């Protein structure tokens, strides 16, 4: 049977597989995009109804080149998918900051903290409240203290991606259990060269 096929038939079969790969690659992507941001227009038909876009390169030429490349080199696309699934390292997940018992420093009362954290300014550019402009965050930490709530200071090192910080602040401890905490100071431990980069 195969000996009856011409090279045109083989080329057509190759192209058809390319179209299948194209659809299996792009349709899920389109649906995911549409799900993330509900369409305000008419889906696929809106593409054809829309006026000719001003940016011809981005809206027409680039997709056409992409479609042509996928249909022509679909074995490479399949290889990329396999490599992505089987040979790619899992994404590095940011380790959220947390407070442990080793980080606890000093047990203080709410009143002691509020007296020590008063902020003043000769130009009156800060509210006359504990923690000044950060008073709201302190109020959120305090909340409604439960029986047995203690407030401790803490100091802990933290590595966020490639940046190192020394974090300090206050944490609620109840019956030895670490509860809510609030970082009031975060000092970079990076070198000068690192600090040139954009932080946060």
């Amino acid at each position, binding site marked *: 049977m195969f000996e009856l096929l011409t090279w045109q038939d083989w080329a057509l079969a190759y192209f058809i597989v390319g179209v299948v790969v194209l659809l299996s690659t792009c349709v899920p992507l389109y649906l995911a995009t549409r799900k993330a*941001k509900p369409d305000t227009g008419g889906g696929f038909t809106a593409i054809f109804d829309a006026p000719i876009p001003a940016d011809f390169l981005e809206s027409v030429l680039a997709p056409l080149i992409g479609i042509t490349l996928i249909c022509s080199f679909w074995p490479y696309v399949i290889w990329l998918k396999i490599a992505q699934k089987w040979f790619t390292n899992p994404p590095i997940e940011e380790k959220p900051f947390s407070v442990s018992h080793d980080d606890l420093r000093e047990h203080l009362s709410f009143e002691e903290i509020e007296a020590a954290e008063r902020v003043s300014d000769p130009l009156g550019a800060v509210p006359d409240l504990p923690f000044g402009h950060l008073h709201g965050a302190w109020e959120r930490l305090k909340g409604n203290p439960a029986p047995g709530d203690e407030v401790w200071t803490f100091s802990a090192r933290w590595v966020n991606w490639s940046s190192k910080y020394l974090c300090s602040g206050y944490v609620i401890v109840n019956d030895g259990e670490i509860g809510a905490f609030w970082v009031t100071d975060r000092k970079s431990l990076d070198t000068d060269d690192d600090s040139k*980069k954009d932080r946060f």
Partner: protein
Amino acid sequence: MTAQIAERLCYEGRDLSMCSQPLSDYFTLAGARPAFDTRSCTALWRGYIGTWEVRDGRLYLIGLSGTLKEGTEANLATVFPDFPERVFAHWYSEQLRVPQGKQLEYVHMGYASTYEEDLLIEIEKGVVVNIDIRQNGTSLEADAPEGYGIGAMTVFPRKQGADDV
């Protein structure tokens, strides 16, 4: 990441570009951040430009310009409703970097470009504790750009209702 537009700093009567973002620290410590439009300009991922002043040895935020996601303009009162003119930056304990002189090397990322010297202002709880100048070298190019600048950015037009969904 595109090179970023710097913050403004009024220091000893001069208007300078500052490659530090004390307001980012505030948002982190306060645990709240206004919904700035961070997608319209690749050189302004933070969505605002703050104007700062060192006065009598203290760091103040004296202005803010930006746009919120819903399209309204943001100013100092957007973040500090009770202090629309001047805010003491008591939350900040870091070094301010103010590049000066001719550009030595342009890096199209964050604030990574280098200049002939950096004015380094050490701040502790909003108060200036040390001032230093770091010499980074001398530019041999006569036409090297003077002062902080960014080489390129892309500005995306806001789409009607694009952020409403």
